[in-house]
C-alpha cells in the first residue's frame, strides 16, 4: 500500500519530497502523542497501586503529610503487625476455603453441564439451555435479599456451606464450557465410545483432559470471582469468625467511619488481599489477554 507515495517520491522531485518529509514529521508527532497519551493513562492506572504499596509501609502522619510520594520517609511494619491482630489470618484462611471450594465446584458442575448440553442428545436439552441463558440475565444485586431468605429457610445461614454452595455454579461458566465443547470435533470421543467406554468414563478420562484451555479460563474466572466477592458473602453470614478477606476488611473500613482513618492499615489490607489474584493473573495472563493470535471465538 506504500506503492503510491514511493512512486511519487521517485517521479516528481523536490516538491513532493518536501511533502513526504512533512508527512513524516506529522507521523512522528502523531506517534509521540500516542505514546504520551498511553503513558499518561498507564500512570493513572498503575500509580494508585504503587502509592498504596508504599503507603502501607508508612506511619499514619507520613501517609497524610505526603500523599503523592510512594516512598515512606521511615519504613515501618506497624500496619502489618496490626493487621495480624485484626484476624487477618483467619480471613485469609476463610477466603482460601471459599475460593477453592467454589472453584472446584464450578469446574466440575459447569464442565459436566456444558458437556451434556453440547454433546448428549436428550429430551429437554433445549429448554434447559434456554433457562440457563435466561438466568444469566438476572441482576445479581437484586438477589441479595432473596438469597438471604433461602439460606435462612434452609438453615445454612451463617455457616461455610451458606457461603460456598450458592456460588458453586454459574450460568456463564456453563455457557463457556458448552461453547468450548461445540468447537471441538467429536471424533476422539466417538473413538472412545466405539472402544466401549460409557458416557461418564468418556467424560472423565477423554473429554476433561482435552478441555484444559477452557477449564483454565473457568478457573481464573471462578477464583477471581469468589476471592473478590463481597455482597454475596456479606449477606450469607453474621459471625466475625466466618469473615473472608473482603467482608473482614470491609467491616474494618466501613466501621471506622468518623474515627481518624488509618490509611496505612487499610491500604496494607487492600494490597495484601490483592496478591493472590495478582499471582493468578500474571501466571495465566496469556489466557486472559488473548492477542490477535488466539482471538476469542465469538
Amino acid at each position, binding site marked *: *500500500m506504500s506503492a503510491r507515495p514511493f512512486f511519487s517520491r521517485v517521479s516528481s522531485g523536490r516538491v513532493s519530497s518536501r511533502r513526504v518529509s512533512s508527512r513524516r514529521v506529522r507521523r512522528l508527532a502523531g506517534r509521540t502523542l*500516542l505514546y504520551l*497519551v498511553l503513558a499518561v*493513562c*498507564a500512570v*493513572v*492506572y498503575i500509580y494508585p*497501586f504503587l*502509592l*498504596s504499596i508504599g503507603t502501607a509501609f508508612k506511619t499514619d502522619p507520613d*501517609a497524610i*503529610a505526603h*500523599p503523592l510520594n510512594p516512598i515512606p520517609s521511615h519504613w515501618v511494619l506497624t500496619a502489618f503487625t496490626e493487621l495480624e491482630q485484626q484476624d487477618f489470618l483467619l480471613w485469609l484462611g476463610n477466603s482460601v476455603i471459599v475460593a477453592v471450594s467454589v472453584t472446584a465446584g464450578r469446574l*466440575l*458442575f459447569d464442565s*459436566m*453441564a456444558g458437556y*451434556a448440553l453440547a454433546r*448428549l*442428545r*436428550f*429430551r429437554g436439552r433445549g429448554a*434447559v439451555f434456554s*433457562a440457563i441463558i435466561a438466568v444469566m440475565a*438476572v441482576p*445479581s444485586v*437484586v438477589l*441479595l*435479599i*432473596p*438469597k*438471604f*431468605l*433461602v439460606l435462612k*429457610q434452609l438453615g445454612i445461614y451463617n455457616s461455610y456451606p451458606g457461603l460456598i454452595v450458592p456460588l458453586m*455454579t454459574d*450460568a456463564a461458566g456453563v455457557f463457556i464450557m458448552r461453547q468450548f465443547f461445540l468447537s471441538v470435533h467429536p471424533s476422539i470421543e466417538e473413538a472412545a465410545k466405539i472402544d466401549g467406554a460409557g458416557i461418564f468414563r468418556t*467424560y472423565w478420562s477423554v473429554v476433561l483432559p482435552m478441555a484444559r484451555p477452557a477449564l483454565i479460563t473457568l478457573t481464573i474466572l471462578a477464583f*477471581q470471582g469468589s*476471592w*473478590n466477592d*463481597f455482597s454475596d458473602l456479606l*449477606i450469607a453470614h453474621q459471625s466475625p469468625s466466618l469473615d473472608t*478477606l473482603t467482608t473482614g476488611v*470491609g467491616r474494618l*473500613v*466501613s466501621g471506622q467511619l468518623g474515627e481518624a482513618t488509618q*490509611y496505612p492499615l487499610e*491500604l496494607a*489490607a*487492600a494490597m495484601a488481599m490483592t496478591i493472590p*489474584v495478582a499471582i493468578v*493473573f500474571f501466571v495465566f*495472563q496469556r489466557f*486472559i*489477554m*488473548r*492477542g490477535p493470535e488466539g*482471538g476469542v471465538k*465469538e
Partner: protein
Amino acid sequence: MKLLSRRGSLRRRETAAGWLMTAPVIVLLLVFLVVPIAMAAWVSLSNWTGIGSPFSSDVSSVGLRNYQALLTQPGLPQQQLGESLRNNLYYVLFVVPVQTALALGLALAVSRKRLAGRGFFRTAYYFPSITSSVAVSIIFLYIFGSTGVVNALVGYLGAHGPNWFNDPSGVLQLAYSGLGVTQAPAALANHGFLGLPWWQWLAGPSVAMVAIIVLAVWTTSGTFMLIFLPAIYAIPSELEEAAIMDGANAWQRFWRVTFPMLKPALFLVLTLGLIATWQVFDQIYLMSQGNPAGTTLTPAYLAYVASFSDQQWGQGAAIAFILFAIIVALTVLQRLVLRDRGTVAGDRA
C-alpha cells in the same frame, strides 16, 4: 430388530446421563435463583419483620402496600427511593458513556500492530479490573481523601480541593450557581416527582458521587477494553487498506470502516455497562453508606439497608423488584433503540 432396541437403549442412556450431568447446575440455580425470587416476591407483599420464617402464620399479606409506600405515598420511603434513583441515574449517565468511550479508545490504541510495549499497556489498563471492590474502595478513599492525592494535585494548581466524601453539593447545581442561578425557580422547587422537587432532580451527581463515578470508570474500562480487542482484531485488514486506497483519512476510516464493524461489541459493552451500573452496591456500602445527605444512596444499597438494618423486609424486597423492573425495561429499550439504528444503517449499506 436387535439393532433398533440397542439404539433405543443408547438413547435412553444419553437422556439419563444428560439429566444427571446437568442436575447439579439445575438444582443449584433453582434453589438459589428461582426459589429466592419467588420467596422475595411474597415478602414484598407481606409485613414480615425478619423474625421467624416469612411463611409462618404471624406474617400476613399487605397487598401492594409496600409498593404504594415507595411509589405513590408521600413520605420518607418515597423520598429516599426518589433520591436513590436520581443518584443512580446520574451515576449511569456519567459512567456508561465515559467508560465505553475510554475502553474503545484504549482498545484501538493497544491493538496497533507496531506499538512498543503493547503488552505492558494492556496489562496496566486491565489490572484494576482484577482487583476486588473492597481494595479499590480503600484506594479511592485514600486518593480522594481530604488530604489525599487528588487534593494534593489540585493544590499544586493553586486551587483548593473539596472535601470529597463529605460534600453533598450537586455538580450541576454548582454549575447553575456559576451561571448566576443560585435560587431554585419556584416552578422547579414546588413541583416534583417521587417526593423529590424537580430542582433536586436537576442537581446532578454530588461531589462525593463524582469520586465514586471516577472509581467505576477506572475499574471497569479495562474489562471492556478486553471485550473490544477481539472485535477489533476480527476486522479484516483488507477493509482498512481498501479505504486507504480510496483516500479516506484516519477520521473517515474510523467512522466508516472500524466503527460499523464494532457495533456488536459496542452493543454488548453498553448492555453490560447499563446492567452493572444500575446495581452499584459494594462501593456505596464500603465508602459512603449513602452519605453525605443521601446523595450517594442507590436503590441496591437502599434495599439492603431497609431489610438488614431497618428490618423492613417487605419494603426492601419491593425496592429490589422495582430495581429489577428498571433494569429489564432499560435493557429492552436500549435493544429496541440500537437495533432500529442498526437496521437503518444496514439498509443503507
